[in-house]
């Protein structure tokens, strides 16, 4: 029920602008339904006119007066009604198709826009797959429901109303009789749907487990081959496969029998109407002719009466998915945005110093990661952060760029708290090179000028040269126009890292944060990256989050973090002389003759 309310709010928000469109559609569907209901009566009239004509014609006395003019007129009216039906239905479907496409388009962009405004925290706490599913399955389900269900729901309701009006107009008793089985049908449908929902749930769970197993095993196929585990793998698979067979069979059966069940009930209902109608015809006060006409008409209605019910129940699953989808997207929509200071102070580079002052920070309440860290950095200095995994090195980067805000203490640039600075300007001042260099679909040039899409080719080339990647790029057949795509890994991790360095160089940030790549790079490439990093650090204030000590030997200061506290601080030589944690780490990583 709560889902329904949230979904209602969500759809209201996105469909509100199309209110007139919906009204117009409803009117058109009303017209179309009216045409469909009325048109057959003209066919009936045409037949009786034809019979009349035949009667006149068969009698030699009246043959002269027999003509088909009325019959032709009625037939034309019949066709015109269907024209009315077809054209109003056409415009209505066209309107709804446009509304669906445009509203889901707005939803899609709205979701993306929201994503760009949200706090980084959300992305850190949710898996990529889960968020991406909002784009793939949830928006897809919403689109399908709007696209197919909307018009069908409209039509079914109009049809139901039309039939009810016509039935009660004709004969109230028979109308009630026609409707009498509805509660039974609805009860039965609810029962089957309930069973089907449970069975399909179980089916989805088991299919999920099977697919998970296949995914894990086949993705690890090389491990299976090298260990000769094929037989075990098949045995494990068979268990899942047979389970799915059983539960999916149940799911398919329960969800499959609803439609034949309801069609059969419709037929049964028709038979009941015939009994009741013929009883009225034979025992009632009506003339046989009138009674017969009534039975014929009601048989027709009885057959049509169930159609909207069948349609609505068959759409139930689709609508359910659309409600869940809306709920899931709304959950993203209701996330808080990044906090941007109102009238944030302007910042123009770093004039004298950056100060991290007694900063405490936790990602999750109660689990503090940094316990009072203080680091002073003078303009132009290079500071290296060293420490084991989980010591809080990367957290410092998250704070400097305001991906997260401190719990207590403060970070200042030239004495101004980061939280008082204009966020856009702050991020333009701070450049980062990440451990995992995410590139974007497009050309190499596009990627290098990612931070400044209007930058000219000369600046792109200049940045690439400084990053030691120019020679490699021009050795490619397409040079700077070579396509970068996520799927095909044509570039090695090292080459990507160098491109990401070029990307940062181009924006010329005053404060640099380099998160060093750890693995997948051989030490020769690493040396190349090191050189590029040295180029980029030149003349800038910088933080280097180091995993391999080789890269930071020249730092002005090395800060050793452990469990969120600074345990050692000083130059390379000073720290070696301390014989502490750093010295031990250094001994471990380096080769000595």
């Amino acid at each position, binding site marked *: 029920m709560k889902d329904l309310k949230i979904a209602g709010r969500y759809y209201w928000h996105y469909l509100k602008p199309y209110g007139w469109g919906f009204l117009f559609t409803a009117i058109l569907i009303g017209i179309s339904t009216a045409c469909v209901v009325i048109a057959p009566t003209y066919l009936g009239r045409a037949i009786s006119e034809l019979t009349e004509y035949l009667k006149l014609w068969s009698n030699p006395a009246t043959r002269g007066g027999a003509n088909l003019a009325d019959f032709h007129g009625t037939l034309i009216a*019949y066709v015109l009604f269907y024209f009315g039906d*077809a054209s109003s239905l056409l415009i209505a479907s066209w309107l709804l198709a446009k509304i669906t496409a445009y509203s889901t388009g707005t939803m899609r962009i709205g979701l993306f826009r929201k994503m760009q405004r949200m706090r980084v925290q959300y992305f850190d706490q949710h898996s990529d797959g889960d968020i991406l599913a909002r784009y793939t399955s949830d928006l897809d389900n919403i689109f399908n429901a709007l696209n197919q269900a909307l018009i069908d729901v409209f039509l079914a309701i109009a049809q139901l109303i039309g039939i009810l009006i016509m039935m009660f107009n004709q004969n109230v008793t028979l109308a009630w009789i026609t409707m009498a089985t509805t509660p039974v049908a609805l009860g039965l449908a609810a029962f089957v749907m309930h069973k089907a929902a449970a069975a399909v749930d179980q089916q989805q769970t088991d299919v999920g487990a099977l697919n998970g197993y296949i995914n894990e095993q086949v993705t690890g196929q090389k491990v299976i081959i090298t260990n000769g585990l094929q037989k075990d793998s098949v045995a494990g698979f068979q268990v899942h496969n047979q389970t799915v067979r059983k539960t999916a069979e149940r799911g398919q059966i329960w969800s499959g029998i609803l439609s*034949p069940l309801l069609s059969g009930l419709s037929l049964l209902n028709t038979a009941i109407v015939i009994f009741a109608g013929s009883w009225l015809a034979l025992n009632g006060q009506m003339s046989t002719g009138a009674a017969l006409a009534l039975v014929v008409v009601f048989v027709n209605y009885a057959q049509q009466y169930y159609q909207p019910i069948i349609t609505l129940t068959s759409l139930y699953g689709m609508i359910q998915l659309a409600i869940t989808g809306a709920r899931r997207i709304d959950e993203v929509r209701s996330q808080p945005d990044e906090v941007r200071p109102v009238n944030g102070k302007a910042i123009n580079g770093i004039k004298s110093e950056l100060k991290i002052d007694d900063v405490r920070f936790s990602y999750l309440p109660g689990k503090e990661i940094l316990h009072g860290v203080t680091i002073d950095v003078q303009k132009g200095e290079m500071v290296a952060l060293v420490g084991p*995994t989980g010591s809080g090195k990367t957290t410092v980067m998250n704070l400097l760029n305001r991906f997260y805000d401190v719990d207590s203490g403060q970070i200042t640039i030239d004495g101004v708290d980061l939280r008082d600075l204009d966020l856009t300007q702050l991020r333009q001042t701070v450049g980062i090179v*990440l451990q995992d260099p995410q590139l974007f679909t497009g050309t190499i040039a596009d990627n290098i000028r990612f931070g400044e899409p209007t930058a000219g080719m000369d600046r792109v080339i200049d940045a690439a040269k400084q990053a030691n990647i120019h020679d490699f790029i021009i050795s490619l057949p397409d040079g700077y126009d070579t396509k970068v795509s996520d799927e095909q890994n044509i570039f090695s991790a090292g080459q990507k890292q160098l491109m990401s360095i070029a990307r940062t160089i181009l924006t010329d940030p005053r404060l640099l944060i380099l998160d060093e790549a750890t693995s997948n790079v051989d030490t020769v490439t690493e040396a190349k990256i090191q050189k590029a990093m040295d180029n980029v650090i030149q003349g800038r204030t910088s933080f280097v989050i180091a995993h391999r000590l080789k890269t930071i030997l020249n730092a002005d200061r090395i800060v050793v973090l452990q469990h969120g506290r600074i345990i050692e601080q000083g130059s390379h030589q000073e720290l070696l002389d301390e014989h502490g944690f750093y010295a031990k780490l250094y001994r471990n990583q380096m080769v000595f003759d």
Partner: protein
Amino acid sequence: MKVLIPYLKRYWVNATVATVAVLVLVFATLWQPRLLQTVMEAIMANDKSTVWQDGLWLIALAVIGIIAGIINTVYSAKLALGVATDLRADLYQHVQKFAYADIETFSASNLVVRMTNDIQQVQGVVMATFQQVTRIPFLFLGGLILALITMPQQWWVILIMLVIIVAVAIVAFKQLSRLFGRTQQLIENVNTVARENLMGIRVVKSFVQEDNQIATFAKPSDELRDVTTRIGEVFAVLMPAFFLTANIAIAVAVYLVGQEATLHPTYIAAISSFTSYLSQILFAVINGSFMMTFATRAFISLKRINEVLDHAPSMTFAEGPEREVAGNITFDHVTFTYPGDDKPTLQDVSFTIAAGDMLGIVGATGSGKTTLAQLIPRLFDPDSGRVLIGGVDVRDLPEKTIRDAVAFVLQRSTLFSGTIADNLKQVQPEATSATMRRAAEIAQAAEFIERLPEAYNAPVEERSANFSGGQKQRLAITRGVIANPEILILDDATSALDAESEKLVQEALDRDLKHTTTVVIAEKISSIIRADQILVMDEGRVVGAGTHRELVANNTIYQEIYQTQKAKEGRLPA
């Protein structure tokens, strides 16, 4: 399509029952109007007993319809699931026969899609075929024949209607399938941008590119909106056009009946049944074309499944009894090219390592280190030259012998979900807790395993996600050593271990697995510094071989690598 036949044959009983049920259903559907007609006639004639009798028949028909419908659903489901389950099992077993090269040909993720989504598609279409599709031709033919019997003179009205409808359907569905293809492409583009922005959210934010990325996203998203509008427009025209055509055909038929009313007065009474037969034909055509689009997707899936089933495993192993082999390895002028590559990855590689020795392999990324190691347990066969273990060409050894003799630990060789013990017992079924413990101690894993509440029975999550990088590698090494292999290959398998633990692992290997030949591939010189022999690889060739001291003295490439890792000149820490 041919792929399915043996499976359908296996479930012929289900298929037959489902089809018979459909026939009963079609019969009930077509019979009902006739019965109605007799009831009407009986009412007109005031014939109560016939009304009762035929009314009861009508109810019986409805009940038969329900029963036939349920039976049809049940047996279609049994059939579809039977076919899908067996097909999936055969596919899975076939993939388990694949060699390394075959997995690379298809790619693992691709194979997963074929076993999951594609099978699902096939299951759906089998189910739909026996529920719906079999009904369509019967309804179509039944409607057509009955319409022709009712008004034989008007065959050409029916024909023209059919031609128009089928022509419209062909044109529309051709356009639709093009638009659907484009939609698929655009959805992929939209998802790519979304995924990249998800993974690179920090990059986007730190470069303040939110607005530009929204513009990038809007491009495929807007086009997607426009293409879906086009699809909607086609459908908006299609359905009303069908109905209008059918109703015009009816009007024309009635008009013609009128013109000839004086010649064939009985036709007037047949108008209403003629009308219902025409709409039956129309529905059959509409449903048929929908089924066609649905089936096209399933045919593509079936083709993809067949591709896998038709792909013969690229490697077969020697038959024969299992045998013991010693741990000495020889490469004799080995050259190897990956399928599809034009340049060999290994060129004329020769070396020998004695049983129980340690071989180190170093070189830049892409120099062929891993490829070389993969030839030892015969994951690939060389183009020319020979690989021998225990003095025997690996091509002459049964698969089980090779797998038992060689343990290969990959850089990312995670354990499978289950418990730690499950994973170890997969490799060494007789493993006792003492054996597991001994292996874990060698891999320096015992300490952290035994600190877990359930120790060796601790659960392993998918992708071993509940263990850190270093722990994963130690667990993988534990699995590698538990069966006392003659040859142990560590392919960058200690990269996440610190130097201290790595040294302990190597010392333990020296001490406890004296007769095991160890092959270590590493980025870090410190990992292989103690090796009896080190191979230096460069662009697929062995450009140097010897001990660390020898190579430092006379191999330039080794020196270059070493330089990048050597401690800084100056005072050494104590």
